[in-house]
């Protein structure tokens, strides 16, 4: 078994060993079998403090990093207007506060952030927080649906594959699923999106190719939900299929690993039927690496959404980030980073908590 997150490739390679490394202080990983709520609360609090520090670090480092990029918002705006007046550029810089010393700008920004004032978008002339909150629901919807799609379908197919392999019946199904996952896993996401648009939207006309809903149709209630759902299909598949392939492989490998373990053999030797063994014993244990990986996936979805949102015209955060970067809209870009890194921290924390709550050793005891 082997698998990789879209960019890193590595994280899940460790996952099947059922020793997730999200928590890296060895002393902490030895927890009592039943987690007392006090310990859990302390654990969460410690994580929270650490998370806030990490997010602040991200903001400060990126603040300086972005300034290394050539050009600034004033020069870009002057460029776009076809202007020929250098005084105008200087005036814009003063107006944006870009003429002040960098440390002063940073201090102002960070002090603002801790008071939930995330600054002002130079280009859109709106508070950054408002711009981000406007786009957040669309991204959360897309992320959520891609997540659910990939997890559910991935686990389902992974279980089927491992079962057919384990029981030896219909092994072609296992090969088909594994082969399909391998292919999906090797396909460039944007390329797949383009092919899907041509096929399902242009040639067949089944699904809308862009946007989140039919603008100007004035739909309400269920017809609006339906409308958004049809718009959601292609982006969800595009964003989720890579991860779906991951879950198939992860689930299948993890299932097979657990199936080979002593307690399963014991159960089978006791005469428990195979489906029951799988439901009662194997799945619960095998899903731990899946839990670990899903935490990683959620964090990455916001970044991966850049491509999907571009191709499908989805009005979300990923696209906002890319535009802000290209326009050097510093504060907006920092705002997006702030939000996404906070999301990653929260997801990691949730994963840790969930992992601890369903610690494998507890389940193991029950299995024997």
């Amino acid at each position, binding site marked *: 078994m082997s698998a990789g997150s879209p*960019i890193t490739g590595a994280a899940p390679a460790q996952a099947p060993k059922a020793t997730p490394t999200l928590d890296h202080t060895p002393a902490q990983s030895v927890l009592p079998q039943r987690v007392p709520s006090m310990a859990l609360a302390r654990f969460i609090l410690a994580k929270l403090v650490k998370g806030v520090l990490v997010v602040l670090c991200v903001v400060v480092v990126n603040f300086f990093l972005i300034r290394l990029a050539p050009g600034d918002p004033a020069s870009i705006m002057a460029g776009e207007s076809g202007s020929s007046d250098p005084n105008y550029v200087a005036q814009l810089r003063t107006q944006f506060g870009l003429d002040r010393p960098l440390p002063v700008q940073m201090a102002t920004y960070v002090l603002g952030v801790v008071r939930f004032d995330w600054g002002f978008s130079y280009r859109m002339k709106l508070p950054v927080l408002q711009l981000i909150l406007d786009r957040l629901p669309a991204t959360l919807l897309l992320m959520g649906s891609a997540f659910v799609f990939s997890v559910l379908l991935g686990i389902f197919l992974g279980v089927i594959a491992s079962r057919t392999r384990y029981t030896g019946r219909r092994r072609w199904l296992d090969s088909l699923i594994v082969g399909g996952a391998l292919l999906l896993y090797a396909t460039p996401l*944007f390329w797949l999106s383009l092919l899907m648009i041509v096929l399902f939207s242009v040639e067949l006309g089944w699904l809308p190719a862009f946007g989140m809903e039919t603008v100007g149709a004035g739909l309400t209630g269920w017809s609006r939900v339906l409308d958004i759902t049809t718009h959601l299909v292609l982006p969800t598949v595009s964003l989720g299929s890579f991860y779906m392939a991951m879950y198939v492989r992860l689930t299948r490998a993890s299932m*097979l690993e657990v199936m080979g373990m002593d307690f399963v053999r014991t159960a089978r030797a006791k005469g428990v039927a195979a489906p029951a063994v799988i439901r009662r014993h194997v799945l619960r244990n095998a899903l731990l690496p899946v839990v670990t990986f899903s935490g990683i996936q959620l*964090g990455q979805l916001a970044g991966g959404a850049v491509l999907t949102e571009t191709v499908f015209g989805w009005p979300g955060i990923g696209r906002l980030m890319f535009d802000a*970067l290209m326009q050097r809209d510093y504060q907006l870009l920092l705002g997006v980073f702030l939000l996404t890194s906070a999301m990653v921290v929260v997801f990691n924390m949730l994963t840790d908590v969930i992992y601890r709550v369903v610690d494998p050793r507890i389940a193991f005891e029950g299995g024997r």
Partner: protein
Amino acid sequence: MSGFARRFLRNTGAVAGLMILAAILVVALAAPLLFPDSPWMMVADPLILPFQDGQYPFGTDMLGRDIGAGLAYGARVSLMIGAVSTAVAVLAGIAIGAAAGYHGGWVDDLLMRVTEFFQTIPQLAMAVVLVAILTPSIGSIVAAIAIVSWPPVARLVRGEFLTLREREFVQAAVVIGQHPGRIMLTQILPNAMSPIIITASLMVATAILTESALSFLGLGDRNMMSWGFMIGASRTMLREAPWMSLMPGVAILLTVLAINLIGEGLNDALNPQLRHRGED
């Protein structure tokens, strides 16, 4: 070693992957012989269909450039970016992970905080920002991919080192007073290599995918004919000339697939004990 080779060769998928990759590698190496002209050279009429003109079996693009030459030279760039960025990331990951895992204590704590920091920004977003800041070039793309790829290696290596550090043979080396650097290099690292090799093989695949994504977003190197660039360049003509984006897409797919198959084969062959547990 022969046991490893035998186990690897018994895996049909891995062998197929190896053959595909070997073929791609041969084409990449032979590109200057097969296509003496630069892949950017406009050699014929624009938009010749594939399989129409014996001289240009893969057809030509909108400027009359030979798509076959693009595919061959693209193989060089994609493989090179994949290999170099992975090598850089793996070396960085090993150095950081080894230091953290072996030393433990505050070194570990500090390095893991740094690693965590790098993992807090979604990776594609980080890569896009880095390339934009460093301005798009082969160097900046390799650097960006390496920078977003090393943290998982570091964690993996750290984990291995944490475990192996306690083993008898390492403790023995410590007792006889070997230099820590030597212990890490000669005692621990060789024993930690299998998961690193497996991970690295998969990172090559994702690096190729990442490069193509960057090119698609317009952040590729303008002087390098890469597959990602070819898809990005021809995606506007997806309907008029689908072959132009299909072929480099298939090339990426095949390469990534081959590397994944090899990675799996390596995994199986390097971890024979896993087979006993039903893993495959």
